[in-house]
Each structure stands twice: as C-alpha cells, then as structure tokens.
C-alpha cells in the first residue's frame, strides 16, 4: 500500500493524463508548435557546438605562432632567411616554413586549399596522422604525393583512382598520388584541403625555393607564447604575428556571433510563443473555468488544481522538448543542418560541402530547457493559479 501523499500525486497525475487526452487536439497543436520552437533553438545550439568542436579539433594541431610577411597591408611570400633571425629568440622550439594557398579547379568550379610543410620537422608529427581516416602524410622522400580532404576526393572522383593532376601557372600539368584521406572529424577545415610536400607546392604555384607563404613557430613553454610573439613583432616589424589562441578566438567569435544573432531571432519567436501560451491559458475557455469550479466545489484544493495544471504543462513541454531536441539532433547529424547551415557557416557553404558531427552537451540541453520549458510552465500555471484562487460559487449559481 502506497503512502497517502504519493497515492494522491499518482491520482492527480492520472487525472492530468486523462485531462490531456480529453483535449487532445488543442494539446497536440500546442505541443507541435512548442516542439518546432525547441527544434529551431536546439538546431542552432547543436550546430554551433558542432562547428566549434570541429574548429577546436582542427586548430589543436595548428602552430603556436604563425608569421606572415606584409607589404602595403597585404600578405606576400616570406623569405626563409627570416628563420635564422628567429633563432636568436630564446624559447622557440622549431620554425617550419609553410605554403598555404588556394587552387581554383575550373572544370569542377571548386576551390581547394593547398597546404605544404615539412611534416618531419614538426614537433608532434606522429599526432597528425590521427586526423586521417586512412593513409599517412606525405614524407620528404615521397615527391608527388598528397593527402586530400573528403570533399576533394568526391569532387575529383578519387574513390577508385589514386592519382590526380593540377595545373601549374604555365598550364602544364602536375600529377599527384593520393596517400591519405582526412577524417570526418576535421571536415570543417580539411574538407577542401590538399596537403603535399613543400617542393611539390613550390613547383605547383611557382614559388622560389628561398620563399614560403608563412612560417610556423613552435615554442618550448606554452605560457611564453604571448611574450615570444611580442619579441617576434619587434624583431621582424614587416610581419604579421598570429598566435594559436587568436585564431581559435576568431573561429569562436564568428560562430558565437552568428549563433547569438540567430538565437535573438529565435528567442523573439519563443517570447511570442510564451505570450500566446499565456494568452491561451489566462483566457481559459468557459469549459476549463467551469471544470476548475466543479473540482474546487468538490473539495479540490487550489494546490491540487495547480498540480493538475503543472503535470499537464510538464507532460506537454517534456514531450515537446524530447521531440524538438531529437529532431534537432537528426537535422544536424543526418541532414547536415540544411535549414540553418547557410545562416551559420556563411560563404563556406558554397563549395565544397562538409559533413557536421553534432556536439550535444548537458549545458546545451539545460540552456534550451531553461529558455523553453520553464517559461512555458510559468505561462500556463500562473493563470491557472489566478483562476483557482477565486471562490467557485459561479458553479452553483
């Protein structure tokens, strides 16, 4: 036998369920609209999470400091002679020249990012292979080899073939053999990427042997990054010095700003929904008012009526929350957030496409819950309380 208090709550819950069922059309329509709002809010939240975590995964292996030569406010090739100058700064672990450029494939109307560096000289070259779905990065002893992103593989039709060719500036062809493909986790930045040897990149772009596009600097003590960056800026005043944290912040700011803007629009929709729910609930139908009056006169306390309303709202909003969040996850995970991607990713949606891995944290779910379920509960329970505290004498008139 259950305690009276628990039995009472079960009775009230049972009554709430039958009450929901009695007004199923009204409750179903509210639940679906609510689920749609949560779906949009959840999609933005999960999409932001997916983009941010993808960016973080990729940026994990970026150099601690990157320097680029600037002239008239624009970037130009940097002489390798700068490496010798940098060796005078205490705390620098390694300086690695890099070529970073873009290649426009006219036949497929796609832009590829070309990245070339001496991977063997990098302090953590073994970790880099973790970003690959299969294969290995080009070795210095393997000229004419490349690692490609998943989209490059699709666009160039390399699922069966292992070689492809790109045009040099003089329109002669240079051939590459695919030795590895990037994994989906790094799609955000590696999807359109082709990684090759420095020698091959210089050959492809026609860059002199003594030049690179930028220099990657790794430091011994991560706490000294900012100090070393300042020393470099003083030593090489014609360069732009970028730290890893600055690049990470740029990505975060871009996605958070877009997410914030979208969230403002969505919160407006949510507020409109809350006002609608409030209006519906405070303007209780004559049937609902009569029902509250009957229950009160039959000995139901105000708290009992509020408990019914609370359970009804909780069940509707919990169901809407589960449906909305599940739909948002499916939307982001299986449909690539196709409804919202253009808003969040900007120009990068044009070409080539990339696959999203949704990132859902407890904090995200709590945030969505706080901004959706709690206002709904307030918007429905408070007006019911106002109605339930009025003496039910209208029923006997």
């Amino acid at each position, binding site marked *: 036998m259950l305690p009276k208090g628990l*039995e*009472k709550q079960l009775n009230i819950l049972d*009554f709430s369920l039958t009450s929901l069922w009695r007004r199923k059309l009204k409750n179903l329509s509210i639940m679906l609209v609510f689920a749609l709002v949560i779906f949009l809010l959840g999609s933005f939240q999960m999409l932001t999470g997916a983009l941010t975590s993808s960016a973080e995964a990729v940026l994990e292996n970026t150099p601690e400091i990157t320097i680029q030569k600037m002239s008239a406010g624009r970037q130009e090739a940097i002489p390798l002679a700068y490496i010798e100058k940098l060796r005078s700064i205490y705390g620098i672990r390694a300086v690695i020249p890099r070529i970073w450029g873009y290649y426009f494939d006219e036949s497929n109307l796609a832009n590829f990012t070309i990245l070339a560096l001496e991977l063997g000289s990098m302090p953590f070259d073994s970790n880099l292979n973790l970003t690959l779905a299969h294969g290995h990065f080009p070795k210095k002893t393997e000229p004419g080899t490349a690692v490609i992103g998943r989209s490059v593989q699709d666009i160039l039709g390399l699922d069966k073939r292992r070689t492809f060719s790109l045009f040099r500036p003089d329109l002669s062809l240079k051939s590459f053999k695919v030795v590895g493909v990037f994994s989906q986790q790094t799609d955000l930045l590696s999807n359109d990427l082709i990684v090759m040897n420095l020698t091959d990149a210089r050959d492809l772009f026609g860059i002199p042997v003594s030049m690179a596009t930028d220099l990657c600097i790794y430091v011994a003590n991560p706490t000294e990054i900012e100090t070393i960056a300042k020393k470099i800026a003083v030593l090489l005043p014609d360069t732009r010095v970028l730290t890893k944290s600055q690049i990470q912040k740029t990505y975060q700011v871009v996605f958070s700003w877009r997410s914030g803007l979208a969230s403002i629009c969505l919160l407006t929709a949510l507020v409109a929904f809350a006002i609608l729910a409030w209006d519906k609930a405070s303007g209780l139908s004559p049937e609902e008012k009569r029902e509250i009056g009957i229950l009160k006169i039959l*000995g139901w306390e105000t708290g009992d009526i509020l408990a019914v309303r609370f359970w009804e709202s909780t069940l509707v909003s919990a169901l809407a929350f589960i449906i909305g969040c599940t739909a948002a996850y499916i939307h982001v995970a299986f449909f690539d957030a196709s409804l919202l991607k253009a808003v969040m990713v900007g120009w990068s949606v044009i070409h080539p496409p990339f696959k999203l891995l949704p990132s859902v944290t407890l904090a995200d779910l709590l945030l969505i819950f706080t901004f959706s379920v709690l206002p709904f509960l307030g918007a429905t329970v408070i007006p019911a309380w106002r109605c339930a*505290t009025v003496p039910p004498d209208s029923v006997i*008139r």
Partner: protein
Amino acid sequence: MLIELDNTTKIYNQGKPNEVTALHGVNLQIEGRTMVCLQGASGSGKSTLLAIIGCVFPPTSGRASIAGKQLSRMPDRFLTIHRREKIGFIFQQFNLLPRLSVLDNITLPLLPLGISPRERKTKARKLLGQLSISHRENFPAGQISGGEMQRVAIARALINNQPIILADEPTAHLDSRLSMEFMQIMTDLKASGKTIIIASHDTLVSEHPAIDKIINIKDGRIDVP
C-alpha cells in the same frame, strides 16, 4: 444544531462601486437528519445562502457554524477541506465533466484524498448499484440521459459519505416521474441519517411529505410568514 447562522451578512465586491449585499443579517438553524426546502425568487440570495452553508466562502460578517466549525475568517484551504468532508453537492445543471466516464465523475472527490484506484472503484460501483445505473459505468457522462446524469450527480455527492447534502434546483430539468424518483432517493438518504437542504421552486419538492421545514428568502432576508 448542525447548521447555525447568526446575523449573517454577505456583501459582494465590498467597497467597490458595484457592491451588492446579497444577505442581510440572516438567522437560521437547521438540525441534523432533517430535510429542508429553501424557496425564493431568482436574485433573492438563495444561492448565496447555499454557498455559505456549503462552505464555498465565509460570510462577510456574523457567525456561520456548519457541522461544528466556525466559517468566519476560515482560510480558503480549511474551508475546502471542511467542505470536502461535510458537504455533498447536487447541482441544477448536474455539473458533470461530460467527456469523463460516469465512474470517473463519481470518484472525482476522492482523488485529492489519496484513495487508491481500486478502493475508489469499489465505492463508486456500490453507489452505482444502489442508484441502479451500473450499466452506465463506462459511458461518457455527456452521453447519458438527464435522469441518469442526476443519479450520477447524487452518487458523486455521496461518495465521500458527507453528512450534509445540498441540492440546487435538482428537479429543474427532470419530468415529474424522475422528480418523484429523486425525492424518493432523498427520503432514503434522510432515513440513513443525512441532512438534506434543497433549493427549489418545484411544489413537488416543497410539498413532499419528507420535507421537515420550508425556508423562504426574499431580498436577502429570511421571510417569516
């Protein structure tokens, strides 16, 4: 005395422009195990008197003692609990929840008492049997006849075994045969120890031999002939 009103006044919207005095210093005593008929024209204060006896709200001034409890200044929560334990209501419009089953309508007063579904059903089925409507147990209350609705309303008023039954114009929507049946049920309930107060214009009620006392209300005052 089971019910005792002493100089009871009820003012609606007190201090506002639309202030209305519904009862003016009413004095009333009703003994237990009696059947009383409350008569009065529309707007005479009959419903207000019934609401005070039914512990729906306390009087504005004066004393109102119902089943041993003083209602004056009693907080709403205690008023509700007292009403639940002592008063059973039968309404003119029956006031059933039309989409709820007959059984569920009857057991409504038991839900906040924490009584298990099995016990609720047992109590309700016993009353359904006594009132000869067991065959309608699972019907939605909105889909049964007026006479059956009346019996469901009676069953609901009796489910918690309250000592006082208040009926507001209970025969207004019934034909004479059903009205007679209703009065027979009330007579049986009086015999079983209930106190019954019926507000009605119907002579079939006021002239019924089981009625012990007739109270006339006019302009918020007890009209002594």
